[in-house]
């Protein structure tokens, strides 16, 4: 499906990948997708559809979850990346914001953010400048910077997780269910910041979501996963018009 779209200079290209957990459980089979430079792409689907697994395949975190890519290929900036160590992928510009936020609970908000900067080995000043940039995007985090991240609210933790990821200076952010467990107002705030980051700094996003209306409001293009395969894809506008999607998912998630 992605092949028929002529994205010549795709930032990320996933071709027909298959991912197996524990050598036996087939979680993703035959997913292909592309993220163009500067795009916000939505990866939609119900529980267990394979969204998180697809993102982990891209970020190289599959192996840490006892899974492997058993077929297909992934190219980031034109380089095959399925065999690359996660730390190297981060250096190359992919960062994964995990489902459920995964802040470091005993580290302060500021230490959480700093930790994201280490991979680039910045000098003291440049690390500080990086922090200020994140605080400009998320002013709320500045107020909480001395608080242990585990004691901040869910919305703040999501901001910490995104801010920490941005500290790696990524060109592509894999964002896994940012709306999970958050009030609609906070979700809207977070997606608004994602859109701004995309527009002003050119950061590309691949966002896995169950909350289809919010995701498609901010994404340019979307893929719909069902039991490990892409069943539908199109521009946000096309998907919003699509009756099958309306029936199958919007009904369920609303």
């Amino acid at each position, binding site marked *: 499906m992605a092949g028929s779209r002529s994205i010549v200079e795709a930032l990320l290209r996933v071709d027909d990948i298959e991912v197996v957990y524990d050598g036996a459980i087939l979680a993703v089979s035959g997913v292909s997708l592309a993220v163009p430079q500067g795009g916000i792409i939505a990866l939609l689907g119900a529980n267990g559809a394979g969204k998180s697994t697809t993102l982990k395949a891209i*970020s190289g*975190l599959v192996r*840490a*979850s*006892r899974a492997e890519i058993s077929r297909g290929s992934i190219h980031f900036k034109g380089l095959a990346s399925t065999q690359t*160590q*996660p*730390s190297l*992928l*981060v*250096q190359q510009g992919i*960062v*994964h*914001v*995990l489902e*459920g936020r*995964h*802040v*470091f*609970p*005993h*580290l302060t908000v500021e*230490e*959480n953010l*700093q*930790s*994201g900067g*280490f*991979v680039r080995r910045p000098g003291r000043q440049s690390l500080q400048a990086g922090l200020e940039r994140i605080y400009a995007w998320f002013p709320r985090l500045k107020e909480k910077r001395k608080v*242990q991240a*585990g*004691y901040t609210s*869910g919305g703040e933790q999501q901001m910490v997780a995104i801010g*920490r*990821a941005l*500290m*790696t200076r990524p060109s592509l952010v894999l964002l896994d269910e940012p709306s999970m*467990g958050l009030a609609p107002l906070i979700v809207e705030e977070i997606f608004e910041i994602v859109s701004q980051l995309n527009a002003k700094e050119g950061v590309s996003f691949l966002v896995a979501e169950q909350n289809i209306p919010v995701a498609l409001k901010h994404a340019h293009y979307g893929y719909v996963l069902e039991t490990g395969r892409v069943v539908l894809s199109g521009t946000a506008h096309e998907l919003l018009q699509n009756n099958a999607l309306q029936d199958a998912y919007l009904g369920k998630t609303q």
Partner: protein
Amino acid sequence: MEFFLEVLIGGLLAGLMYSLVAIGFVLIYKASGVFNFAQGAMVLFAALTFVSLLERGVPFWGAFAVTLLSMLMLAWAIERMVLRPLVNRPPITLFMATLGLSYIIEGLAQTLWGAQVHGLDLGISDEPFEVAGLLLSQFDLFAAGTAGLLVLALSLLFNKTRVGISLRAVADDQLAALSIGIKLQKVWMIVWAVAGFVGLVAGLLWGARLGVQFSLSLIVLKALPVLIIGGFTSIGGAIVGGLIIGASEKLAEVYLGPVIGGGIENWFPYVLALLFLLVRPAGIFGERAIERV
């Protein structure tokens, strides 16, 4: 009263020696969730290497440097050959691996340096020393000071440096650490190396106190109650746990000993530890998971 204070303070100071061993455990447990039974063997290995070098005429700091280097190599080898292949295995597997390691390290030390008992003189006399009318052991004061410095250095390392923040990040959440490009293997190696350094310091002090011999690796068993009381994840806990164990075992020996019979010192810490287990399973300073999502 004076006598009571002397016993108490003597016990507290001796307790810090237990803390030194316990800290080695805490470091590795915190960062990788591995209960490293081989910590005692590492203490022995360090002490034996150091004393053997001294006996061959190597000067103090030279021997210290070479021993430190060999501890770093040991850490590297353990990470490469044991931990990395066993990553993602259940904790009991890793525990068994470190149990095996402890015998291998002991055997290795014995093969390299022989099995006889060595005396180790750090040049600090064990003469009693008068402070505010109390007689205290000069050696104990020195050991306590060393432990204090070590803890200070570790807390600076953990709180003020990038390596330290990375270590705590890995201790909190390995997957998240991976996701932002932290290399787990590198962090584990550093932790083992730091634990090796702590083992070296503990080895020198314990070696000077008891003589360098194979029973040195058994101080693991003294560290256990300290860990149970202080918690497995807190350096502060290891210190407080050591103080509690040190003081209470000495007081028990002196005041309960005549009633119950001598040698309480050896098992009293376990009584205390078991009582703590019943009341506070995570230890005094054990990190409770922050439950707020």
